[in-house]
């Protein structure tokens, strides 16, 4: 053995022996995340529990001062009706602000379609709101830096700084944004930032009698909502857009987008 090889081997043995065994155990990412309780808000919607009462929409509009009768809303509920002869109908009159009190489907432009009850195959309701995407396209397009994603994962609009150009409204693939008819700025769901930062549930979660809407910290491994997202079959809307939506749906159908 040459002296060079001998020294090399000695150094390797010493270096290997100096690494304690504990450092070789695999790091559990769950434990690491649980140790650093940073908040990352996520929403969980159980479409199987929704009955389309629209209390969430009413509560949201009241809580956030959205003009009640105006045809804009931060959250809405859609109705999907599939008939047995394979036709699909979707509507959301006034965003379901007054719930679904009629069996006829609103086709838009003042036209309605009464569906024969015997012909109804399946029907369900889907609540929708801003997905607070991980990579939100709306904040990318803002020319003045008025909309942004906070460190805890909520996409907000700076009402003082917004110039109302509407780029973000067009950029959102989920049509979650609208033009505020009174303030003349872009407006959207804030996850009730004033409520969640005080430890309260959002207005829509609070108003839902059936627990169809839930909210949690997706970085907290012990959060019941995170548990559901990790362990059950959930889906997101328009995954192919690469927006990384943070609103997860249980019981999602292919037609729901």
């Amino acid at each position, binding site marked *: 053995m040459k002296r060079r090889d001998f020294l090399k081997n000695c150094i390797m043995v010493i270096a290997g022996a100096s690494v304690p065994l504990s450092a070789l155990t695999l790091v559990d990412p769950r434990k690491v995340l649980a140790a650093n309780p940073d908040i990352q808000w996520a929403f969980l919607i159980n479409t199987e529990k929704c009955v389309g009462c629209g209390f969430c929409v009413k509560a949201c509009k009241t809580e956030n001062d959205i003009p009640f009768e105006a045809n804009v809303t931060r959250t809405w509920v859609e109705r999907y009706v599939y008939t047995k002869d394979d036709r699909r109908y979707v509507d959301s009159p006034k965003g379901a602000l007054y719930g679904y009190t009629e069996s006829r489907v609103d086709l838009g432009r003042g036209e309605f379609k009464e569906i024969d009850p015997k012909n109804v195959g399946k029907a369900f309701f889907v609540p929708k709101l801003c997905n607070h995407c991980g990579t939100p396209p709306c904040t990318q397009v803002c020319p003045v830096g008025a909309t*942004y994603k906070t460190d805890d994962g909520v996409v907000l609009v700076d009402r003082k700084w917004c110039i109302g150009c509407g780029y973000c409204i067009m950029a959102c693939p989920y049509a979650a944004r609208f033009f505020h008819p009174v303030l003349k700025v872009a407006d959207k769901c804030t996850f009730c930032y004033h409520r969640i930062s005080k430890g309260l*549930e959002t207005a829509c979660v*609070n108003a839902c009698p059936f627990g169809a809407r839930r909210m949690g910290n997706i970085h907290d491994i012990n959060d019941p909502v995170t548990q559901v997202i990790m362990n059950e079959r959930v889906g997101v809307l328009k995954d192919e857009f690469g927006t990384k939506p943070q609103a997860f749906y249980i019981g999602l159908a292919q037609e729901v987008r």
Partner: protein
Amino acid sequence: MKSHVWRPLYVVIALVVGLLVFRFFYVPNDFGSGKRGFMYSFHRKSNAEEWKKQPVKYSVTGKQKMHEYCSECHGEEVKVRTEKLHGVIPCEDCHGPVLNHPEAPEKLDIDRSRELCLRCHTSLPYTTSERKRIPGIDPKGHNAGVQCVKCHNPHNPKLEDMK
């Protein structure tokens, strides 16, 4: 280079400097990006605090702490009135948001309208939806125009217990 090149260049430089000076005074000092980087979170950082200052109108009456806020004063009443079927409905859905109650609105404005009940109790032929579990009526056929609360007790909706 000749002066016919320099002169417009001075104008351009003056415009750029002017723009930078204007920007220096106009853009707030706290403009910056958080840990999401420039692309997703270039913003006025004090804005998040402004959003947090919005008034909270609905208190905790929902699933998080069912009826807790109301129970602080109306304890016994809340207990009796929520042990029946409609106990899953947060008080504020019908009684309205409790902002500043009991000071400013001494009495809450209760929504007793027929439309409120019909949100859930309109009969829809959707056998696959959760709606099927809720008893429904035909709004046009079942005592049209009469408030539901005239006959039904909203806190104890069981038909057997009807007056």
